[in-house]
C-alpha cells in the first residue's frame, strides 16, 4: 500500500473542510424563508403595513445573506485556490 503523501492529506482535509463550510449556506436560506413566511402572515393581518414590512425585511434579508457567502468563499478558496499546498 502506498503511503499517504502530505499533499494528498492536505487535499483530502481541504475537501472535507469545504464540505463543512458549505453547511453555512443552509442557515440563511432557512432563515430567509422563515422571515418571508412571517412577512406574508404580517401582511395578511395588516395589509396597509405591506410597504413597511417589505422594506424592513429587504434590508434584514440582504444583511443576513452575508454569512452564507462567507462560508461559500471559504469553501471555494479551499477547493480552487488552496493556500495550504504552498506551505509544503
Amino acid at each position, binding site marked *: 500500500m502506498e503511503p499517504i503523501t502530505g499533499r494528498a492529506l492536505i487535499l483530502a482535509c481541504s475537501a472535507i473542510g469545504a464540505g463543512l463550510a458549505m453547511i453555512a449556506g443552509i442557515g440563511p436560506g432557512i432563515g*430567509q*424563508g422563515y422571515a418571508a413566511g412571517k412577512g*406574508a402572515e404580517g401582511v*395578511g393581518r395588516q395589509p396597509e403595513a405591506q*410597504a413597511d414590512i*417589505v422594506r424592513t425585511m429587504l*434590508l434584514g434579508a*440582504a444583511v443576513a*445573506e452575508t454569512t*452564507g457567502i462567507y462560508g461559500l468563499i471559504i469553501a471555494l478558496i479551499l477547493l480552487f485556490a488552496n493556500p495550504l499546498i504552498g506551505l509544503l
Partner: protein
Amino acid sequence: MGYTWDIQVKIFKYTLIAAAVFAGCSALFLEKPLPFIYALIFGTLIGILNFRNLALTLEKAVKMTPGQAQVYAGSRYFIRYMINGIVIFVSIKADYLNVLGAVLGLFLIKFVVVVTNLFNDINFFKRIFIRKEEE
C-alpha cells in the same frame, strides 16, 4: 416599480459611490490596480443585481400564503447563492480578476445597507461609551 424602489435606488447610489471610492484608492495604493478594479466592478454589479432580485422576491413573496412564501424565498435564495458562487469561482480562476476585489464588490451593498440603516444615528456613536448607570 414597487414600493421598495426608492430605497433600492438610494442603496444602489451609495454602493456605486463606495465602489468608485474603493477603485480610486486601489488605483492610488496598489501596484497592479486593474485586476482589482475589474473584479470590483464585476462584484458590485452582481451584488446590485442580487439585491434587486431579493427585492422582487420579497415583494412577490408577501402576497403568497406563508407556506408558499417560505418555499419561494428559500428557493430564490439558493439561486442567488449559486450566482455568488459562480462569481467567486470565475474570479478565482481568471487571472485578470482579483478575488478580493470580487468579494469586496459582492459585500459592498451589504456594508452600505448596514451603514445607511443601522449606524446612521449619530447619537448611537455618542452614547456608545456611556454606561447605563451614568444615564
